[in-house]
């Protein structure tokens, strides 16, 4: 029987044994964040939905491969999501800038909201122009708030290699968003 208090490790053990109810519970626990992560990487809600579904289907199919001693379940899940998002970005004709809708309404003032939205679009464009892994580094470290070590594990690289990847990404973004850049913009 699946309990709400079951840890990810316990649920994964049951999923590996073919327990579909445990899989439902695990998916319910992590689906929202998986979609959000895919959406940050692709900037496209419909792609994000497909990626999240595909990621959980792979969790189900390959549950026996997961080794709790080597990585947390979330590390494994985010790795699948990031790989799928990067693969999708490499498809011919793919465009990351389908993002639509409003940002969360966190400010009362409409003008401030418009300015924030414009800034967000500028940042998203600059992010989308980065190489895949640099974009992934910024998403994981700055937007998802993961530590250097966690983000490095998800991208299957050493911590120092990740730090250097992040530094390159930040330098590229700084250039793209600098006031002198014609397609960049001004920092607030």
């Amino acid at each position, binding site marked *: 029987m699946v309990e709400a208090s079951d840890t990810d490790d316990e649920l994964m053990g049951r999923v590996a044994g073919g327990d579909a109810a445990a*899989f439902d519970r695990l998916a319910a626990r992590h689906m929202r964040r998986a979609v959000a992560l895919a*959406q940050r990487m692709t900037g496209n809600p419909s792609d994000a939905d497909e990626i999240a579904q595909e990621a959980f289907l792979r969790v*189900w199919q390959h549950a026996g491969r997961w080794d709790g001693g080597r990585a947390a379940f979330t590390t494994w899940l985010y790795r699948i999501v990031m790989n799928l998002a990067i693969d999708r970005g490499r498809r011919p004709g793919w465009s990351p800038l389908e993002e639509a809708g409003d940002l969360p309404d966190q400010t009362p003032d409409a003008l401030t909201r418009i300015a924030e939205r414009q800034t967000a679009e500028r940042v998203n464009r600059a992010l989308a122009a980065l190489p895949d892994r640099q974009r992934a580094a910024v998403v994981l470290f700055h937007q998802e708030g993961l530590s250097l070590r966690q983000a490095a594990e998800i991208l299957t690289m050493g911590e120092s290699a990740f730090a250097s990847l992040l530094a390159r990404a930040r330098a590229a973004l700084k250039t793209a968003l600098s006031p002198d850049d014609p397609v960049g913009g001004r920092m607030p």
Partner: protein
Amino acid sequence: MTDEDFLRHLDDYGASPERWPAELRAEADAALARSPALRTALEDAAAFDRLLTVPAMPVEDARVARLLSAVGAAARAVPQEGVVMLLLGRMPRRRVAGFCVALLALGWLTGGWFAGHLASPLPTAPRSQELALLNDEVVTLFDGEPR
């Protein structure tokens, strides 16, 4: 850590020294404590970091529910991978490829050896007799009456 070092790390990792590589944190705190200029640089860098932390687009409850329903149904329709694939999946790809090549080579060698060294357990009939037997069958089938 010199001021130049601090500024370089600030560029590389952002305005939260507590998230820098562990070996740099204590020295970064010390550098900040002694230098007002570095504290100003840290504030400027924080403005850039805030730009990068764009709020996530909301993922509505209905959307999550739809995805959960779809993925639950899909999982029940798709089998999990078998034991052999699990074992191969845990191996590095190069080792799996080597394993497959070795299996193929072994099969080819043993097949050739058996073909060359073992006699067939059934007596082989002369070719003319085989044709005669086949001929008898055809006559029986198509004439409708056995001989």
